């Protein structure tokens, strides 16, 4: 079997952001279910949190390509 450990590192780096994204959208959906009018307020916060959490996984992807 051939390959680089960098890809395994990328796989590991997706675990945290995966859980984080799930928690963020769970909280967002909960908030909307309780108070549908709060959509305008919650949406930017949810997507901001999603973007910040997801960035970590993408750093992993970039590093997997950089560290050959």
């Amino acid at each position, binding site marked *: 079997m051939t390959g680089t450990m960098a890809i395994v590192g990328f796989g590991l780096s997706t675990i945290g952001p995966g859980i984080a994204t799930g928690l963020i959208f769970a909280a967002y959906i909960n908030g909307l279910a309780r108070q549908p009018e709060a959509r*305008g307020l919650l949406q*930017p916060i949810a*997507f*901001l949190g999603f*973007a*910040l959490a*997801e*960035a970590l996984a*993408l*750093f992993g*992807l*970039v590093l997997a*390509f950089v560290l050959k």
Partner: protein
Amino acid sequence: MFNRSGAAAEGFVPPSAEDFIFRPIFGDSLFFTKPALLVFFSVIVISVFFIATSRKALVVPSRAQFLGESIYGFVREVIGRDVIGPDFMKFVPFLFSLFTFILVNNIFGIIPIIQFPTMSHIGFPIALALFTYGVYHAVAIKHHGFFKYVKDICFMPGIPKPIYIILTPVELLTFLVTRPMTLSIRLFANMFAGHLLLLVFTIGGEHLLAGGIFMKVLSPFSFVMAIGLTFFEFGIQCLQAYIFTLLTALYIAGALSDAH
């Protein structure tokens, strides 16, 4: 224009970062490759579209005018007014050009024939992030004055003294390094990963098609997956344009607010 030679005879070659390097269009100049061409093209597309839809503005809008106005309205109301607050009108032109430029360049990734998101070359997101970086620092310095701004970053008011040992380096790093870096890498990596994903399934499908009978049977699944992912990519591309602009607006809002 492409590096990949169509022959998939000698085994499957998975897509890699090499697939993002294009040959120069004119002569040997490395400046003018496909992504640079796409940037110029996108500017023309955006200008023509918005001039054409806003020049003969009617009270009862045509379909194109409605589309143009709803994009503008979205940036102004949802990103500008809701995030920045009362002083938002000054920043709407900046936010709007940022949003449309990123959006069109991202969507190039799924338009047939073009099929390359410009933002998957990191140089372009870095340039855009530097604009944002310059703008939010300039706004803050203009609003607070240079020394008060530096003091606000280094010594956030209303926090016990010993915490500054940790907080000051973190805050400095956030404002000077992390923000522009994450802003550009997020956009770049999303587009890079998306394009790579599409390449995996299309090249995989092509390779399967060239193989034996069992592989030929499987290849449509790969192509169907590629088509499905194209729609998924469309969502991601719009979302990334939105997030880049939203974060810019948030940084500007942070620069304008009185207490950090």
